[in-house]
């Protein structure tokens, strides 16, 4: 599908109203507004020239609108005063456009979700389904093995034509350095940044630091990564010394851009770990290496997610471990029934991924996520230890439940995987979540990492990271002045002192100039 057509669809999805040709043009093409301003002044000839240019833009946009109308994706709803047509998106609430090839437009009805033992909690706002409209017919997230892809052009095509239509949150581009070592990625970055915005998906690019070979391509890439792309560095402790210059350059560029820098401790977690709108995602090492998926280009990571607003729960039921475990058990039962529906329709829902992998077993590895929001860490009125204990106790019960269900389904000749993971939720996962009640983990220098209160906070996060087997994201908010060398020293301390598989450095509050050295010379 042409880029302009994608933009038109995206515009209608966002605005969800009737739009005229001029309104579409105005929203999609910046030059149109500029040209309209020019009509107010200038010579007659210039005005005529401007009018011609505007007419040309109108013709161009009409060409694309007509194509979408012919494919029944848009429909004409009325004619305006001067005969200008108004359009609307021709998709019902329960329909989803799954093909981006206009000639093969296919619409499938969204499945009806069965009655579940969490609806009472949903009404109270304690539990929410992540993306309820596509809770069953889309995966939350997938991982693309970039080393199995020939070029960035091919990757763009795969994302646009196969992957985005099957997911409702995030895609991880694992081992991206394999492509970056071969090609310039500026055009790709531009495109992917725009596409992810238009399609409402989050993209994580994961780069193994020790495998960067083309420094020129890398620096160019690093300077151009947009804020809506998560750049994650896959690093071992020894890499911090061995690739010190490269890392310094990364810190320098990222801190100047005030971007957040993400690190995955490769030693603690060798398999994928990335971020979405719902929260972090990960795949366990054993699953990642399993024979079932070793040939897959696209590996499904998460099937469905539910979010628990712990603050809302405790405000109604206080720290009642039994009640909390009962809630989590009900959530697990709900996910189990959703999984059953999803499995039986998997060939239809995930057709594109099946085609891409040339294998049918899309669901041999993914887990389901129970995400927690406002779970009392650094919350003034709640003892974090009690909350951690409550979550930890429910985790034991859930693990037992998952094991029992696997036995039951296997014994009944319906062998499938049923796996639940715990993780944290991000605020963006649902707009109805309670107001964030976390205090940030701030550090000004490496000495802070040795202070009792900071150590205690990091320790709490370390414990939570262990319970959150689906992934946890710990952010260090760096403030004060800094040099790249100092930051690397701090990162090194975190790597060597704590069991944090994934953390980030936030440079928004950093002051002053950095020492600028061109480490690549």
């Amino acid at each position: 599908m042409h880029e302009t057509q994608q933009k038109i669809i995206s515009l209608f999805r966002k605005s969800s109203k009737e739009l005229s040709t001029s309104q579409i043009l105005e929203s999609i093409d910046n030059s149109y507004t500029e040209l309209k301003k020019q009509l107010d002044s200038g010579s007659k000839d210039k005005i005529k020239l401007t009018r011609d240019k505007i007419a040309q833009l109108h013709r161009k946009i009409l060409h694309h609108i007509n194509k979408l109308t012919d494919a029944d994706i848009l429909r004409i709803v009325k004619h305006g005063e001067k005969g200008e047509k108004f359009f609307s998106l021709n998709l019902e609430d329960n329909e989803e456009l799954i093909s981006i090839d206009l000639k093969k437009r296919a619409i499938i009805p969204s499945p009806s979700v069965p009655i579940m033992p969490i609806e009472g909690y949903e009404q109270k706002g304690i539990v929410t389904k992540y993306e309820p409209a596509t809770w069953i017919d889309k995966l939350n997230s997938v991982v693309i093995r970039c080393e199995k892809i020939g070029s960035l052009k091919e990757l763009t095509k795969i994302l646009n034509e196969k992957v985005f239509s099957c997911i409702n949150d995030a895609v991880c581009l694992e081992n991206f350095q394999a492509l970056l070592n071969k090609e310039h990625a500026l055009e790709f970055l531009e495109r992917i940044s725009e596409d992810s915005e238009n399609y409402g998906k989050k993209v994580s690019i994961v780069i193994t630091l020790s495998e960067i070979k083309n420094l020129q391509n890398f620096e160019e890439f690093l300077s151009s990564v947009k804020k809506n792309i998560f750049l994650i560095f896959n690093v071992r402790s020894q890499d911090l010394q061995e690739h010190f210059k490269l890392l310094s350059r990364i810190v320098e560029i990222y801190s100047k851009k005030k971007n957040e820098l993400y690190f995955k401790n490769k030693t603690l977690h060798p398999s994928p770990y990335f971020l979405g709108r719902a929260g972090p995602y990960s795949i366990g090492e054993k699953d990642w290496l399993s024979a079932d998926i070793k040939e897959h280009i696209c590996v499904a990571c998460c099937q469905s997610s539910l979010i628990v607003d712990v603050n809302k729960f405790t405000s109604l039921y206080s720290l009642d471990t039994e009640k909390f475990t009962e809630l989590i058990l009900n959530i697990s039962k709900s996910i189990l029934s959703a999984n059953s529906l999803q499995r039986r329709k998997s060939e239809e829902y995930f057709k594109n991924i099946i085609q891409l992998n040339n294998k049918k077993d899309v669901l041999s590895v993914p887990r389901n996520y129970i995400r927690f929001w406002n779970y009392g860490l650094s919350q003034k009125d709640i003892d974090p230890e009690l909350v951690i204990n409550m979550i930890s106790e429910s985790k034991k019960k859930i693990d037992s439940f998952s094991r029992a269900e696997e036995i039951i389904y296997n014994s009944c000749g319906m062998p499938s995987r049923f796996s639940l993971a715990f993780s944290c939720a991000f605020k963006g996962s649902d707009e109805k979540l309670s107001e964030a009640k976390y205090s940030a983990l701030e550090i000004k220098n490496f000495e802070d990492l040795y202070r009792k209160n900071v150590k205690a906070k990091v320790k709490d996060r370390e414990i939570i990271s262990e319970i959150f087997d689906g992934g946890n994201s710990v952010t260090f908010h760096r403030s004060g002045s800094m040099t790249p060398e100092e930051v690397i020293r701090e990162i090194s301390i975190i790597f060597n002192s704590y069991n944090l598989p994934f953390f980030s450095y936030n440079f928004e509050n950093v002051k002053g100039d950095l020492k600028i050295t061109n480490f690549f010379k």
Partner: protein
Amino acid sequence: MEIKCETAFEAWKKALKYLLEEADNYVDKKGRVGKEYLNLTLKIDSKKGVEKPIEVLNSFRRWVYPPLDEMKSFILGKKQVPGYYYNYGDRAFNPEWRNQVDDYIVPLLKLNPESKRAVVVFYNPEKDSYLEKKETPGMIMMAFNLRKKKLHATAVIRSNEMFFGWPGNIYQLSLVQDYICKQVNCEPGTLSTMSVSAHFFNEHLDEIKQVIDMRR
């Protein structure tokens, strides 16, 4: 060891008690600790009350057993259901491989009611006998013997978790028995299972003991 009872519930309780008291300690490849007994046979007089063990499991409200109609659609379904490693129905009824029931057992029993060849095999060496294979059928085969106008059904199960698994297996055996009875116009007879590795896991010992102590 053979346990003979009138009903599925009684046989299930006796089997669990026997494992608890007589079986050897056992640790599976995932490190789960339990009890195991090799070659345990359970025989029940009729399919009456065959769903009871599943009802008992559901009454605990701690697990979700697949609904009976879903289990029926899996065992009697003729197609591979996507998203599952294998399906018994597909193995038994799918004409793409061999519809062993409609194209073999039914005509065989009509032609030769006393035949000892009426077997359905779920295990397929071409698909299953590989070291890297994660899941292979637990139920290897079913055999059907028509004697005195009653169809006696037997299932051979290579790995049989007796607390959660057996209730489903005996129910599925009864469904296939029922299906064949209707096709050949006979009455259902006894139901037997031969569990090569009959086991349970200690993780569910409390509930197992509760079942053993249950009255009718």
